[in-house]
């Protein structure tokens, strides 16, 4: 597209900032559309786009974790995002949109991504206080507030969901999470009538009734009952007794939000939705486009996110001048976990095709129902008919959908099924995995990634050369939306590496053909105490900067000795080797421990005096302590000595070890606090101080749900509740920020510490080198659920052993600074020059900035004048 006649950059206005609107903007930025165009986005919600697919996890993870744009702005300055701004009219002649405040904005291209609205059937009482829909975070917040209102007799509120489809069951899940007695009322004779057949629906009912959800199928709602004060009292049913409830959630389908388009004279489909062509361009106006649930390509709307994403990409591509993109329909396959039950439906799930046959495996006791729909294969490549050759047309899985990732791509591939296709759905079958998918099979339908795309990403001669699942996910986006395909993605990668004979290389480095976990086990089994013993028995050469610190960490975890003791000292990275953090001019920074961030005025004064006396730069860290920069290596013992004398100890800021446990001020001072977060933070920091781990570890404790300690951005975060503590695990800041996830809720302090002991020690034992807790949890089969099994349920019976290991750590702790000061041999290393210990390194220089020192790096080394004597051997 060329600039406009006036020379101004052409402007794309996007109406709606939901998942699909966001995807369009992201595509516009990524594909370079913003190099030539300005993009202006109007979203009517207060929040920027968030993951509505994962809406049910809102109560668990909160709004921030759902956000698709956590910073709230796009990095590209050519994109302007306006939230809480409704577009109320379109003047197509003038190419302007009218905003709710009466102002207008011009566009060259208009992209409508207004989504859909919940359909509320016209039953009497539908507007009573206590009636809700289930679509936005605000809807969930309103439902939560209503659920918190007890009934007159003080008992818990009850809730009814109208609609037993996919969304209805998610709404029921939300009610269950809120502890509300939940009923589901569905007009059709079974749950999820669009996706499931009768037997599958019945299997699903058995599953969710076990969870306390009451299911009423084949029942028609007649009215929402009024308690006489304008509040919901229940639901009237045709030919059945009314149900009592205080909450009614309508979840009876969605309708495209096309009013804006209708009023502007754009053609809409018979059943709603803006009529668009295969490029998603309005059939009425070539400068208007519609994507997502508000669009109706060929007259049909698509209520899933994956087709919406495809539409967004096609429009971005077309606006860039591309001609390849065309939307010709979408795979409406579904896989999800509803109330903990796997449900999947794909392809021709109802065997509607002329020669379709069904293969069913059902185990009512185990709650499994699996159905494959197969059809005769067409003629072979030479046009000869084939006998007894079948292809997969579709299927339904309830209770176990693990084979979905393999089965669904088979549908579109047209591949012949093996001789005994029932093998594909029998329990414990891995047959399907060995089938091999064709390259064009779509593995990740959310992001439209084919097996071929994955292979291109891992191709050893290719451009990307990804070496593991994480790299492939980052490179292709596969598995990053709903995550249901991750196992398949992993399988494809591993098969490829297997085929080309490249063992998926988990070796630490050239010296050890072992993972860190294997190394840990080897050291534990043989009781090694030195690098030399280990490398001679299990490795080659003399190690490197990768394996030596890893061995040092493993030895520290198991033996608990001083990290500078004997040969172990030569294994440490420079930070551990000097018990301080090296900075850019070769000086070090020093961080004394300030447990929980609590410090006395006297302590502050000592730190201030030390900084002043040694001329150090001081800065407050993110972990609630004070960092002193610019110490020469030979000054470190002098500085520690002053700090240790004043009662300070090492803060381990240099180690792959526990750093800090940050806290808010808690119930002692804060009027909102419900628990003493400072005391717990101090206790935890002192318990786990000095624990060497695969990567640095941080903790946080908040005294109430306001979460001022930002505990959920830590490897372990504790948040006070009225009844005790909630424990969250796997959070971190940094380049890939992650929110910690709830491991266990409302536990007392003793239980909390026991679980934390197990969690941390299991991490120390099994994580890879430099793997933080979040990717470690992700790497475990089963993820967070697996951690919970091991830590909370003690399914491996490791609990006592892990606790004992932690008890040994706590027992064996000593301050590394103090121990170094007391050992002349260790101290002897803290000299500038072995032959001129009194001579500071002339390469270290500083200037000043804002009243403090600042390091200077010199391009060439400094040579001291010849007047400096070269010392004789000491």
């Amino acid at each position: 597209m060329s600039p406009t006649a006036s020379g101004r950059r052409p402007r794309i206005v996007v109406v709606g900032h939901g998942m699909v609107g966001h995807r369009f903007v992201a595509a516009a930025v990524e594909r370079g559309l913003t190099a030539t165009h300005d993009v202006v986005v109007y979203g009517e919600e207060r929040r920027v786009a968030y993951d509505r697919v994962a809406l049910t996890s809102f109560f668990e993870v909160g709004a921030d974790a759902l956000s698709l744009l956590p910073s709230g702005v796009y990095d590209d300055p050519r994109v302007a995002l306006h939230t809480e701004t409704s577009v109320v009219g379109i003047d197509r002649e003038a190419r302007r949109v009218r905003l709710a405040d009466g102002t207008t904005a011009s566009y060259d291209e208009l992209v409508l991504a207004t989504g859909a609205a919940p359909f509320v059937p016209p039953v009497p009482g539908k507007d009573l206080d206590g009636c809700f829909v289930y679509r936005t975070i605000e809807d969930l917040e309103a439902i939560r507030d209503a659920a918190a209102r007890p009934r007159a007799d003080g008992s818990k509120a009850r809730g009814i969901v109208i609609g037993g489809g996919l969304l209805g069951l998610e709404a029921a899940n939300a009610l269950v999470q809120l502890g509300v007695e939940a009923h589901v009322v569905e007009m059709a004779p079974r749950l999820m009538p669009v996706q499931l057949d009768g037997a599958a629906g019945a299997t699903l009912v058995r599953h969710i009734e076990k969870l306390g959800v009451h299911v009423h199928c084949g029942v028609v709602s007649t009215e929402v009952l009024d308690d006489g004060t304008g509040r919901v009292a229940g639901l009237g049913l045709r030919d059945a007794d009314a149900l009592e409830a205080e909450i009614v959630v309508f979840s009876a389908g969605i309708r495209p939000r096309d009013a804006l388009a209708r009023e502007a004279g754009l053609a809409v489909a018979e059943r709603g939705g803006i009529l668009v062509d295969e490029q998603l361009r309005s059939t009425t106006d070539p400068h208007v486009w519609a994507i997502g649930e508000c669009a109706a390509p060929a007259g049909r709307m698509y209520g899933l996110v994956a087709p919406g994403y495809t539409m967004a990409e096609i429009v971005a591509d077309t606006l860039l001048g591309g001609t390849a993109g065309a939307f010709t329909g979408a795979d409406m396959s579904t896989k999800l976990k509803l109330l903990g039950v796997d449900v999947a439906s794909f392809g021709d799930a109802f065997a509607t095709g002329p020669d379709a046959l069904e293969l069913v495996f059902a185990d009512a006791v185990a709650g499994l129902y699996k159905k494959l729909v197969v059809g005769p294969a067409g003629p072979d490549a030479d046009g000869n008919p084939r006998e007894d050759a079948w292809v997969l047309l579709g299927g339904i899985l309830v209770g176990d959908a693990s084979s979905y990732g393999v089965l669904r791509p088979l549908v579109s591939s047209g591949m012949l099924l093996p001789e005994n296709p029932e093998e594909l759905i029998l329990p414990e079958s891995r047959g399907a995995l060995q089938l091999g998918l064709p390259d064009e099979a779509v593995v990740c339908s959310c992001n439209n990634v084919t097996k071929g795309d994955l292979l291109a990403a891992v191709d050893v001669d290719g451009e990307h050369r990804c070496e593991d699942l994480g790299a492939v996910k980052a490179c292709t986006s596969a598995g990053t939306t709903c995550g249901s395909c991750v196992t398949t993605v992993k399988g494809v990668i591993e098969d490829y590496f297997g085929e080309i004979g490249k063992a998926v290389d988990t070796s630490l480095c050239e010296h050890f053909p072992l993972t860190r976990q294997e190394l840990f086990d080897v050291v534990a089994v043989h009781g090694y105490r030195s690098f030399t013993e280990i490398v001679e028995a299990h490795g080659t050469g003399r190690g490197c900067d990768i394996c030596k610190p890893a061995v040092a960490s493993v030895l520290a975890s198991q033996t608990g000795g001083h990290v500078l003791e004997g040969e172990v000292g030569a294994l440490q990275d420079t930070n551990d080797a000097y018990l301080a953090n090296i900075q850019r001019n070769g000086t070090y920074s020093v961080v004394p421990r300030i447990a929980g961030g609590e410090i006395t005025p006297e302590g502050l004064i000592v730190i201030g005096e030390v900084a002043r006396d040694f001329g150090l730069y001081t800065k407050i860290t993110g972990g609630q302590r004070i960092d002193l920069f610019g110490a020469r290596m030979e000054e470190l013992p002098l500085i520690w000595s002053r700090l240790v004398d004043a009662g300070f100890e090492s803060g381990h800021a240099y180690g792959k070890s526990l750093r800090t446990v940050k806290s808010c001020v808690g119930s002692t001072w804060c009027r909102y606090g419900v628990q003493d977060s400072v005391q717990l933070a101090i206790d935890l920091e002192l318990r786990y101080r000095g624990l060497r781990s695969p990567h640095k570890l941080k903790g946080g404790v908040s005294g109430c749900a306001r979460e001022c300690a930002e505990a959920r951005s830590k490897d372990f975060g504790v948040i006070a509740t009225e009844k005790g503590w909630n424990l969250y695990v796997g959070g971190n800041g940094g380049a890939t920020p992650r929110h910690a996830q709830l491991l266990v809720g409302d536990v007392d302090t003793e239980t909390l510490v026991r679980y934390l002991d197990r969690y941390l020690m299991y991490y120390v034992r099994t994580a890879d080198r430099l793997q933080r807790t979040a990717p470690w949890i992700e790497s475990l089969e089963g993820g967070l659920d697996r951690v919970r099994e091991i830590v909370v349920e003690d399914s491996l019976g490791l609990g006592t052993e892990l606790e004992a290991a932690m008890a040994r750590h706590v027992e064996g702790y000593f301050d590394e600074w103090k121990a170094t000061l007391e050992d002349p041999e260790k101290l002897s290393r803290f000299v500038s020059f072995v032959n001129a210990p009194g001579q500071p390194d002339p390469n270290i220089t500083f200037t000043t900035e804002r009243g403090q020192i600042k390091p200077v790096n010199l391009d060439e080394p400094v040579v001291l004048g010849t007047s400096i004597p070269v010392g004789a051997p000491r």
Partner: protein
Amino acid sequence: MSAVRAEGPTTTWLPVCTTDQLSRERGVAALVGGRAVALFRTYDDEWFALDNHCPFAHASVLARGIVGTRGDVPFVASPMLKQPFGLRDGVCLDDPSVRVPTYPVRVVAGVVEVGVGSP
């Protein structure tokens, strides 16, 4: 940067420290002819000396790096950003266009001596 300095006719040997002042696979810095030099003793008791100045980090730190082997080549990893330098010739193993000056080392009667050329 100058080429590898091997022992030559003009080499002057400067005593720096005794052998027991240097642990295996742990460098120390020494001041040799006014220059900061990193001195290393490998596990096999080979002795090496490199300029202490890391050309990537522009800081005087190489003596504080981890010593190891890559194949048969003993090397030190700069403690700052981990670039590996071969101890024998000072060449960066990942970028052969970068080389750190090296100095010959010998041990005479328990005293470690570093050789420097005449100006």
